[in-house]
């Protein structure tokens, strides 16, 4: 199973939408993906190390080097295929490269 950490400023709206969209689309593409949604300020090195992919709206400065692949998921929020497809494609490429 691939674990994705979705994150946004308040941890309540955007990150949950990213979580739902990523799980649904990656399932449709045949991958076993679980995502969690959190507030950026709660993300620390210990938490992020438990995930395979970090999916913020845009890359934040966490104060430490992000040790896992980052996929900027903001365009997913538009719920328009033209905006979200490149993000899902990138996510799929990263998943493939994980060789899990």
């Amino acid at each position: 199973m691939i674990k994705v950490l979705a994150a946004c400023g308040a941890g309540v709206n955007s990150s949950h939408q990213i979580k739902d969209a990523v799980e649904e689309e990656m399932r449709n593409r045949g991958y076993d993906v679980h995502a969690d949604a959190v507030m950026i300020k709660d993300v620390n090195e210990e938490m992020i190390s438990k995930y395979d992919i970090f999916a913020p709206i845009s890359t934040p400065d966490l104060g430490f080097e992000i040790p896992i692949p980052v996929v900027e998921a903001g365009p997913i929020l538009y719920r328009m295929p033209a905006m979200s497809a490149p993000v899902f494609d990138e996510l799929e490429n990263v998943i493939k490269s994980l060789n899990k």
Partner: protein
Amino acid sequence: MANTEKLFDPDLIFFEDASSFEELFQSVGGKLLEKKLVNPGYIEAMTEREKNFPTGLDLSVVNPDSLSVAIPHTEVEYCNWKGVVVARLKEPIAFHNMISPDKTVPVKYAFFILNNEKNSQTNLLSYLMGFFTSGDKVSELDSLNTKEEIYQFITK
């Protein structure tokens, strides 16, 4: 989404004249505090959050000539209600772009998302995004005159 009409309220649609998001948050936040829909600290939390995690949504990607919207919101503990407060700006104000924070977008309508349930099943944001990205919503909203008309248009 079910019960869309309960997520908006004609009395929670404001016509605002502000020159910055800070001014807008002071004005709208003050009214929400009076109505006890938000808790003390809301304005400060919103302002701080907007600086670090901006909420401007570029709608020119939907319609090239469209003005944009913003979806300011903050953490659940500041909110006592679940729904959306709408502010129409007299003149657009700059918000930083949520997905490209180094850029700004001209915002004509701000949709304040109030959410007091952390693990909510109904996603207000996805409802709003569906609304924003179908048709030319900013122009259509601009053509309406009253709060009641705006309420009817948003909830139909």
